């Protein structure tokens, strides 16, 4: 299990690096899918099969599919490739990269030696009980936020020339 965790984590890191560095948006998205699948496996090895399944169903199965659709519809061509190449020039990313490195070192120092995670399977029932028990307020607030987003999307997508 521990071995599987490290393999999945390494795949996730490698795939994420590829997402950032690919010039073609479709290729980047496909690497993003791989990265999400690897994270799902990481969650599974940590004993959270429910979270792993949701990660695959929601992120890899629904949200990134939407991304792929949009990218394919926009039909990004050579101009977008050239733009990506400009953005990936060393002088563009070296500054933010150095600053992020400082933050990473700080994070590692703060985290320090953490106790190893105990892999004990968390069942779907346990997740449900926690969501609708202890975290009910958070769930409700999130659902209200999503509803507002839904209404907003409906409003934006409405035809303005209605009835004419």
């Amino acid at each position: 299990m521990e071995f599987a965790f490290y393999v999945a984590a390494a795949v996730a890191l490698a795939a994420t690096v590829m997402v950032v560095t690919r010039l073609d948006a479709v290729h980047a998205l496909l690497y993003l899918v791989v990265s999400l699948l690897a994270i799902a496996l990481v969650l599974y090895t940590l004993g959270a099969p429910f979270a792993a399944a949701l990660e695959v169903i929601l992120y890899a199965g629904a949200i990134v599919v939407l991304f792929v659709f949009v990218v394919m519809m926009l039909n990004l061509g050579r101009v977008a490739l050239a733009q990506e190449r400009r953005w990936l020039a060393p002088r563009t990313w070296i500054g933010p990269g150095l600053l992020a490195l400082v933050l990473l070192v700080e994070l590692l120092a703060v985290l320090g030696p953490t106790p190893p995670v105990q892999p004990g399977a968390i069942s779907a029932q346990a997740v449900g009980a926690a969501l609708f028990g202890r975290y009910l307020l958070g769930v409700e607030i999130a659902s209200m936020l999503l509803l507002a987003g839904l209404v907003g999307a409906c409003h934006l997508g409405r035809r303005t020339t209605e009835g004419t």
Partner: protein
Amino acid sequence: MNELVATLAGYSSAWFGPQWGPPVWVFVKTLVLILVITLPLFGCVAYLTLAERKIIGYMQVRIGPNRVGPAGLLQPIADAVKLMFKELIIPAGANKFLFVLAPMLTLMPALAAWAVIPFGPEVVLADVDAGLLYVMAITSMGVYGVIIAGWASNSTMGFALVCVLLVSQSLNLSDIVNGQARGRFAAEGLNFLSWNWLPLLPMFLVYFISAVAETNRAPFDVAEGESEIVAGFHVEYSGMTFAVFFLGEYANMILVSALATIMFLGGWLPPIDAPLLNAIPGFFWLVLKIGFLLFCFLWFRATFPRYRYDQIMRLGWKVFIPLTIVWLVLVAAWMQTPWNPWQ
């Protein structure tokens, strides 16, 4: 059988040592079981295409394929050989790697999902607790193969299954089947009235219609509708790549039928609690029910005219989703009353 398994496990330990023997044995055993499941599945897919042509032929008062082998029985093999030797054309503008990868991405989820399908009591490759979630996660990956598919029927199918979860209180597919063995009618020997299809009849219909749409079958096969759009693999793919797409589609049909059988039609359970019927192995009943649902797929194709794209959208969003949500609340309330049939 158990002795044979134990002997083989012993050989593995003898060859690879006590530390590496057991993992190697598990690996080999799983590999063999995967082959035992997938190879017959390929055969089923091949003969499903023949059954489709024959059944639709008879429904349209034709004979169907009858030239290759007795009564056309070797037709699928001839088709496979033909596709294998056809030229593989890759469009000049396509990314070669992705072009060849896409058909595999459709086929793989359709096969991988079979790992958790129970063929009988205790007869399952991986008896995972979150079996249903696994199936949904794996099949949701199939969209990447045919990215043109997916009209959000995923959500209706998922919703319809939530009702099944509610009444069986488990995500494990074997537990869901076993849950259908109990109930008021089952106590009187009429098992088939205790299966989920009757109390959840609207959900069964929603699930099955969504499944037909999900697998891009008539009357929802907009990907093949000449009048609206000629898109996707029917145009650009040829030879073996087309065959793999085709295989994936038919394997998906068998998969959703198997899921419907497990969720709503009692899986491997016999319809009536009689000694004669109980003596027949559960696998037979499972195959019989899957076969019936597959026949329905073909029946639909021969019966209904194709839906227009906006009609499919309306059906999914304005009929199925509201219906499912209402029924979900209704079932949840029903379970709290004394008339709860799922105790």
